[in-house]
């Protein structure tokens, strides 16, 4: 009995001696998969570093960084003035790391014959000026518009790139995640929705926008109009060589770029 407790104590002390470094990541559900892949990769190489990744939305990520409850804030949109101000008030200096690029494909049901829309048409659909698929070359069906909740960075990007800051129609449906968007679109023949490039698969159809199909190339070249950079924010630039520094620079290496591509996003640099 005594021996066991001595061993236990020794083990505890050993664990304490290796000084588990902790990195807490919080924020966007879009950037979350990247952070998770990076965290897995990083912890495999550095067992003494413990990384936890939560996904609570870009706004919550910024809030956590300002309140110092996380080290890295994943964000699918740039920080807003109000967030920078709140950070400055608390002595936090947010530094942006662009880890990947993301296109927002406009998704419809695979059975929908429409192949192509313009940004203008998508905006009119979400404004409620176009309400039937027949107005854009589809079947005579009422359009079911689906949006991400106003709490998401995805929504804000859509609002900025497509809606031109105009207000989405009142009967638009809101869902809480990119996965839920795909779920709703794949089961609703008359639906239109938008999600991250990583969420396009065979169960939904991505439309050409202004004649450009959303793909890694068209996003990287800037041809695809509904695209955005994805950020990780830290408090100040991390100390060179520190675990945090190595974590937020993974995307610059070949492995990191491969991971970004695997998840369905577009690497910042082509290697």
């Amino acid at each position, binding site marked *: 009995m005594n021996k066991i407790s001595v061993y236990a104590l020794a083990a505890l002390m050993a664990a304490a001696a290796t000084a588990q470094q902790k990195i807490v990541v919080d924020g966007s559900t879009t950037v979350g998969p990247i952070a998770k892949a990076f965290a897995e990769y990083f912890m495999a190489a550095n067992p003494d570093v413990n990384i936890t990744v939560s996904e*609570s*939305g*870009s*706004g*919550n990520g910024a*809030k956590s960084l*300002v*309140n110092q409850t996380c080290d890295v804030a994943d964000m699918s949109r740039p920080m807003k003035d*109000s*967030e920078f*101000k*709140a950070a400055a008030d608390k002595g936090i200096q947010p530094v942006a790391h662009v880890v990947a690029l993301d296109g927002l494909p406009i998704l419809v049901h695979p059975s929908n014959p429409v192949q192509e829309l313009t940004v203008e048409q998508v905006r009119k659909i979400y404004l409620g000026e176009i309400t039937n698929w027949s107005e854009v070359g589809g079947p005579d*069906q*009422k359009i*079911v518009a689906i949006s991400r*909740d*106003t*709490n*998401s960075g995805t*929504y*804000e990007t859509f*609002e900025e790139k497509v809606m031109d*800051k105009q*207000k989405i129609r*009142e*009967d*638009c*449906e*809101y*869902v*809480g995640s990119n996965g*839920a968007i795909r*779920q*709703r679109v794949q*089961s*609703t*023949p*008359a*639906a239109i929705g938008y999600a991250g490039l990583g969420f396009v698969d065979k169960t939904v159809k991505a439309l050409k926008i202004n004649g450009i199909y959303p793909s890694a190339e068209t996003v990287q070249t800037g041809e695809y109009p509904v695209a955005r950079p994805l950020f990780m924010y830290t408090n100040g630039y991390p100390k060179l060589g520190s675990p945090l520094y190595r974590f937020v620079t993974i995307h610059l290496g070949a492995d990191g770029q491969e991971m970004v591509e695997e998840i369905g996003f577009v690497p910042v640099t082509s290697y």
Partner: protein
Amino acid sequence: MAQSPSKSLVMSDAASLRLRLGGWLGQGLLFLVTSLSTFAVFFIFYFIFKDAVPFFKLEGTREFFTSTRWYPSGHPPEFGALPIMVGTGLVTLGAVVVAVPLGIAAAVCLSDLLPFRMRQVVKPVIEILAAIPSVAYGFFALVVFATVLQNHGGSVLSIGAWLVLGPVFFLLVMVAGDLLLDRLKHMLPKPRLAGAVIFPALGILAFLVLRQIAARLAGIEISSGTNALNVSIILGIMALPTVVSVSEDALQAAGRELREGSYALGATRAETLVKAVIPASISGILAAVILGVMRAIGETMVVWMASGNAARIPEPWYNVLQPVRTLTATIAGDMGEADHVTGSARFHVLFAMAACLLAFSFAMNLASELIVKRSRKKLGK
């Protein structure tokens, strides 16, 4: 041990004091523990209203209660919560329509019709419904039920109409036939023959009307399965165990003497149920209904996942086939972006909504207390 001679039966002053102190201490501790829950309620009221008041100071009350435009992230933002309140009301009403008749019927069946052994099995099974996490209900509503509603909306509606309206129409025919016969008894020479004509005639009429309704419903196409109907039904099922359990307890509490007294007066089982047992336990049943309403109105996950979350009053207002947004889902969904660091109106408006919910449930509780008191008085208890 031998009793020491100095120990008398009269307690010494010190011992008496100790005992009394101990008693006070015990009482005080228990009082403290009990008042903790009361304090919790006050604290919740205080903190919610503390953060709700700044909203009304910033934006005033008019827009919040009367405008139908909900654009908290717009430029400039608009905070019309009316459609959201209507949405909450609509799904709650829908849940009541589903849960109350079903729940009370099930409770009556459990307490007075099923044999004891069956009851021992069925009641726990119904109560398991309450143990299923709401996110599981939400997942079912979003992935399974919404898809079914979209793809086979018309047939689901018409089958529902048969199931719900069938028994209702049957009862109506029976009652109407009875009343008609009563009226006509003195005018007709052969009352028996009249009965044989009236009941089938009414039955066929009801059947035709029902078939017409079902055919109408079968023609409806539901463009989006995440709507008020979907969540109303799911919320109704979620509220069922509460309604069944509480009203069954109330029916049980009516007691054996009441039932036996009624039988002794020559009443049938149906008469006993309808005229003695249910009126005697009506206060408990009402409490069950109110608890069910609270369950439905406070539910968040299911409505957030499957109500569509469109902040718009359906047209017409009772159209349950359109998406709606509820207060709870709005609070849950908008919390992340609502900036409490800068204390914006967008943050405080959520607390204003929470305050509305709280005020409503407070009013409901008060109403239920009043109802219970009044019905007790009437029954002379």
